[in-house]
């Protein structure tokens, strides 16, 4: 009992940030992301005995989180990926220039097709290898590598043709 608790707490401490950021990426809303992470960890607790390899913990949790997120859509039956809404609410909290730029870049990534942005997020944020991403997304590795290539390629083009104009953005 105690060892399970210790394992769980270690898991939470080590991975809650990555999970929250990934959830935030999926949901674009702080509160929803938080709920999603809570659901994920609660499920993880129940299934903790099935986690044999601690190294696989992160991709295991990400998989649970993705499933929970899908479930959320089943429940709500409306599309939450409308990004503009989140942009409006979030702008209020943006203060520094760095945050502004981050925000702008997030917006650009969000505008990529999901099939490109998804592996990119997993690679950059999750630090997953091509193989890991392939297994999380249930794709083959070559497809994942191609999508990663296209994601960065498109993003670079967007950044080059539209340099950061903070003044304009600030309105």
């Amino acid at each position: 009992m105690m060892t399970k608790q210790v394992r769980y707490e270690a898991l939470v401490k080590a991975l809650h940030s990555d999970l929250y950021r990934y959830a935030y990426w999926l949901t674009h809303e702080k509160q929803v992301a938080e709920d999603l992470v809570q659901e994920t960890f609660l499920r993880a607790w129940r299934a903790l005995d099935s986690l044999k390899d601690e190294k696989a913990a992160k991709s295991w949790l990400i998989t649970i989180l993705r499933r929970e997120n899908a479930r959320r859509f089943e429940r709500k039956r409306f599309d939450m990926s409308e990004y503009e809404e989140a942009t409006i609410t979030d702008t209020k909290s943006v203060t520094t220039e760095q945050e502004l730029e981050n925000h702008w870049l997030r917006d650009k990534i969000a505008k990529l097709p999901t099939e490109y942005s998804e592996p990119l997020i997993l690679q950059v944020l999750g630090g997953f290898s091509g193989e890991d991403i392939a297994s999380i997304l249930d794709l083959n590795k070559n497809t994942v590598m191609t999508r990663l290539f296209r994601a960065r390629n498109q993003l670079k083009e967007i950044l080059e043709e539209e340099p950061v104009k903070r003044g304009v953005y600030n309105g």
Partner: protein
Amino acid sequence: MDDLQFRRAIYADPNTQDAEVLAAQRQDVSKQKFAKDISLLDARIKQALEVPVPNDLCNKLILRQTLASHQVQKRKTRFHLALAASVAIVGGLILNFMQFSNAYHTLGDYALAHVYYEKDSIANNANDQVTLTSLNKKMAAFDGNFSKKLGKLLFADYCRFDGMKSLHLVYQGKTSPVTVFIVPKNEQLGLSTAFNDEQLFGSSMEFKDNNIIIVADKNESLDVWQKNISETVSWSS
């Protein structure tokens, strides 16, 4: 490795440790620059994605799990309690069944066992005597009445006769006490009109609502007892 291949590899994974890619990079300054650019892009993406995590999220997660598993434990305790209660009930039922079930097949068997059980508690030459009035008071519970005394009545009281309330009479006999049971009719036990073992023998008489069972040793004449009883007993219902 041509430029396109190199670019594809870097785009797909700027941190690639692929030997070929790394070698190509070392040989070509423009490739180095490209790799650096994409690395910077990645750093920017990473920075953009690293949104601030709520401070208390970690504690919340641990708290919520602790509460949840506490709930589970409480449910488990309730379950265990319910289980213990069920076991106790079943145990009680089994005990009840064993105690009041018909371990004997006939009234005769039971009557013999009953007499043997109480054999030592009443001596044939005891001085105690029960009056006819107090006997009839007890008989009232069975709507019965004795018109006169059948002999020296040593003992008369209610007892449980295989779970049924019955009247247990002990008369002084020739050598050992004669036992008479007044037992309400019961479907469960077969009536045996005559029964015996090595020492005792007995007989049953059937009346409207009750049976009268006589058990005595073999020096007694059951026929006489039977006759006397049927002549003196009367039933009001």
